[in-house]
């Protein structure tokens, strides 16, 4: 209703404007030629006024928004960039104001008046040389200053730099620290497999003390050297507070180094924001999750850094070696922190006792959680649910998209490998829309998954399914990402 009203008003507004305009046309055609020419000057004040209004707006907003921009640069390199930027702001700002003022002032000052003669002024070599040469000199200065800093920023990193590897993939950064030996273990593309996405060569002893970190922790005032890379598509490693970025390109290694100068704690005070955190965000369109590809960065004192560093566990000794010894060496590297414990407890490798190898299952995925749970000595409980992560339904329907087959197949194979296990499937939605409809949809979606598993050869009496609508949310329904997490199918082991 509101929309129809809105549209109507709009149409009316249009009709009014058009009618007034037509009338003005009519008046024009009635007037004699001379009087018509009079009107050539009429719009001058109007144009000039709009121009100056916009000019004032653009200058005022600069000051209004200045405090909302990035806090002072948190790295040595950032300071250089900031200085050059400030010089450029002043220079271009002056030119901006002068030229815009002239433009809109001329429009008014020299607008048409009957009998005024324009001044025939076609050339002036001196003037033209002047405004070629002056900008050239100013630009040369800017280029010189810029290039000098550019080479400094991209100079080789100091020897004592903390060495980190950042690898982007849709839509996360994985961070590998060189351990005590300051050397990252070699990587070899031919070694890539689902358990070793990065293709790390575990025969290279340098890899043995490397560790994976779920946040980037940096000591203040120490240079950090970052090898940037990507697995699938191009990403961009963007550190806004440090004013630095570098593309992460699959197949083309890139590099970046800098010296952070302000700790997170200091920055919290500086910005008066107790929740302040440095962040690395992705700055190159990399797919539909691009806007949410981030990692926390923490700059700490040297002592804190050393403490943190000593607490980190070598990935090789905690994960790879035990797995190798249990004969199932194949470990993914993503989301390590979460899975280190589970993996080292049972060495689950993605290969089932039936010989079936789970397809595309990642650590932290529902397959691994399920198997880990079944193999553990934990009791079956009403509140232990795992969420499917690769099931997709047609929007608003309970039809599974074909891409869901991989995960369903994995689950059915797991059921076959553990014949005693029985499960229950739960369907859930977010809280948007009609509650009853949600309940119905969640129920039919859970049933659809059950039907699919039965089709894949799991006995019907081993599975139950029920829809719960918008009950039991696992995330907030306030944000989009949260709602997305709430629209899900969960699985619970009811007997094992």
């Amino acid at each position, binding site marked *: 209703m509101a929309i129809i009203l809105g549209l109507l008003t709009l149409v009316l507004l*249009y009709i009014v404007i058009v009618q007034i305009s037509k009338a003005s046309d009519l008046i024009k055609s009635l007037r004699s030629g001379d009087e018509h020419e009079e009107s050539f000057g009429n719009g001058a004040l109007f144009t000039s006024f709009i121009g100056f209004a916009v000019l004032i707006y653009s200058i005022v907003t600069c000051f209004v928004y200045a405090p909302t921009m990035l806090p002072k640069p948190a790295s040595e390199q950032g300071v250089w960039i900031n200085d050059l930027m400030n010089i450029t702001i002043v220079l271009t700002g002056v030119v901006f104001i002068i030229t815009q003022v002239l433009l809109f002032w001329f429009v008014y000052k020299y607008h048409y008046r009957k009998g005024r003669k324009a001044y025939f002024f076609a*050339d002036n070599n001196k003037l033209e040389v002047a405004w070629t040469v002056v900008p050239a000199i100013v630009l040369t200065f800017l280029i010189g200053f810029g290039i000098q800093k550019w080479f400094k920023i991209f100079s080789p990193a100091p020897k004592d730099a903390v060495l980190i590897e950042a690898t982007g993939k849709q839509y996360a950064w994985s961070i590998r620290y060189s351990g005590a030996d300051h050397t990252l273990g070699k990587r070899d593309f031919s070694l890539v497999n689902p358990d070793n996405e990065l293709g790390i060569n575990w025969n290279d002893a340098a890899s043995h003390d490397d560790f994976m970190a779920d946040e980037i922790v940096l000591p203040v005032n120490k240079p950090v050297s970052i090898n940037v890379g990507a697995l699938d598509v191009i990403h961009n490693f963007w550190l806004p507070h440090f004013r630095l970025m570098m593309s992460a390109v699959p197949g083309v290694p890139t590099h970046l180094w800098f010296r952070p100068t302000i700790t997170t704690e200091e920055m919290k005070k500086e910005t008066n924001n107790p929740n302040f955190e440095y962040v690395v965000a992705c700055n190159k369109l990399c797919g539909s999750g691009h806007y949410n590809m981030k990692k926390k960065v923490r700059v700490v004192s040297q002592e804190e850094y050393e403490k943190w560093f000593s607490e980190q566990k070598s990935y090789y000794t905690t994960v790879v070696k035990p797995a190798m010894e249990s004969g199932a060496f194949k470990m993914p590297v993503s989301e390590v922190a979460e899975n280190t414990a589970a993996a080292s407890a049972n060495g689950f490798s993605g290969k089932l006792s039936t010989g079936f190898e789970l397809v595309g299952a990642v650590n932290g995925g529902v397959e691994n959680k399920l198997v880990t749970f079944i193999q553990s000595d934990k009791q079956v409980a009403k509140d232990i649910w795992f969420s499917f992560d690769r099931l997709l339904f047609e929007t608003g329907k309970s039809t599974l998209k074909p891409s869901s087959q991989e995960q369903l197949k994995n689950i059915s194979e797991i059921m076959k490998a553990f014949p005693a296990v029985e499960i229950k499937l739960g369907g859930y939605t977010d809280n948007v829309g009609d509650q009853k409809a949600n309940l119905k949809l969640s129920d039919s979606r859970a049933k659809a998954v059950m039907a699919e598993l039965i089709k894949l050869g799991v006995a019907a009496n081993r599975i139950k399914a029920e829809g719960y609508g918008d009950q039991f949310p696992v995330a907030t329904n306030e944000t*989009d990402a949260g709602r997305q997490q709430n629209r899900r199918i969960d699985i619970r082991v009811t007997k094992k």
Partner: protein
Amino acid sequence: MQTTTVHETHADVHVHGPGHGGGHHHTETFISKYIFSLDHKTIGKQFLIMGMAWAIIGGFMSVLFRVQLGWPDETFPVLERIFSTWFTDGKLNPEAYYSLITMHGTIMVFFVLTASLSGTFANVLIPLQIGARDMASPLMNALSFWFFFIAGVVMFASLFLPTGAASAGWTIYPPLSALPQTSPGSGNGMTFWLIAMVLFVASTLLGGLNYVSTVLNMRTKGMTMFRLPLTVWALFFTAIIGILSFPVLVSCVVLLIFDRGLGTSFYLSNIVIGGKALPYAGGSPILFQHLFWFLGHPEVYIIILPAMGMVSEILAVHSRKPIFGYKAMIFSILGITVLGFIVWAHHMYLSGMNPFLGSVFTLFTLLIAIPSAVKVFNWLTTLWRGNIRITPPSMFAIGFVSMFISGGLTGIWLGNSTIDIQLHDTYFVVAHFHIVMGIAAFFGMFAGIYHWFPRMFGRMMNETMAYIHFAITFIGAYLIFWPMHFIGLAGVPRRYYSFNEIEAFSQYGDLNKLISVATIIVFLGQFLFLVNFFWSMYRGRKSVQNPWQANTLEWTSPIEGIHGNWDGELPTVHRWPYDYSRDPNSDIDFIPQTVPLTEEEKKDKIHH
């Protein structure tokens, strides 16, 4: 349209028209006259109408995604009812968002501001301003339009694919664009995009070759190169840039097609997806960027040069003064053209290319600011001590200069590689190129349409509506794009579906609402232009033969528009096009190019 009667009476003019071969008198049907026309004026109008349609589609897309950015937590069931495949639970899907920004960019950059802008004005103006009966090859000219049309059909069709339209951004960087498993839009949507672009380039080349040969070979008697209006110079260089750079886009795109379909690895190497290594080796995604930007940068000048040319002409006519520094204007266009080919890697400073290369490209990039600055100063001097008639065309031309200054100055920030380390791919870049290219080129286009509308349709556009249109568009454009500088300086990356997922970027909720509101108003404001355009086409005040009292030749050809452009003999040119207010003692402040030089003027060595 009034051409019918006039055309019948002058049917014999046909025989002079190039491309018509024999002297037969043929009767024209609606189809041959308006649809498959070979007349440059009609083809120009076809490009214009097509461009307007695309601009509405592209503009509407921006409204849709601005709704998402302005009100990220609201739901819009109404929109979902209309665009059910793009919305889920009342909200735009991320996949649809990325398809929309990709299509918006592609449509605006290529279809509206390249094809339609050049296509309209090169067609309407080149033959009329150089004194030719038509283009060198009317057939190629018509083909150029029809390739453009088909490219558009393919591009439009991709919106309805089940996997969605291309969604890798208008720059379609691989591997994202090469591997459908990384993004649904890189499936058939991308295939359609690539095919459409190949067709599009064919259209551009057919048009461009035609424009260049027409300017070089078909100028009327007395029309030396240095007597050409700046519009023709600009369109001439635009066509040359297109001819030299668009073929590189084709090779760039064809290699991508190979990588997608034939398993080659031009752009792909060491790719791991879902823990599996893909069998590509030896290529480089950076190679794609070099090829793409070798077109991509000249492309921005393809867009802006025609606007610059028209603005130069319009400012001179309406301020009743010669353009200041006519030769400097030509040489700055030449400078921009040449330098424009050696600055492409400023889009790739942070792609990991050699820092030494980065410094060389910084040098060339900042050099290109010099001819740009010269042009701005020359426009300002043209206005200085003029007798400026404030009309819709001059208003939009002045708006163009304002926009070009605002956006050109931020180019000096971005061109400096060191500063670009902070600004690359942030909203600052979005602000820069929308102002300097998007809005400025639209202003040039509007100025051109308002100025040459009487030439195209024999009637005047309504001024009141034009003034309101100007106010809405000019103020709105600054409200939309100026604050994006601040958002960019706060570090917010471009191409984000939502700013709420990363704390550091989430502070501009209100500003984003404001921008979205302004977007909607500006979009609605454009319908004022459309109403004016179509209403004036049939109902506007009848135009006199030379409504702006301009010097150039197009105003000597019968205003009704006839096939072959001039009855009988082609006009002879005696002087340059900018003799405005030349004689301070005369009441008439313009001397058309067809007026012979006086004895006194002949002694004066400069400017004829």
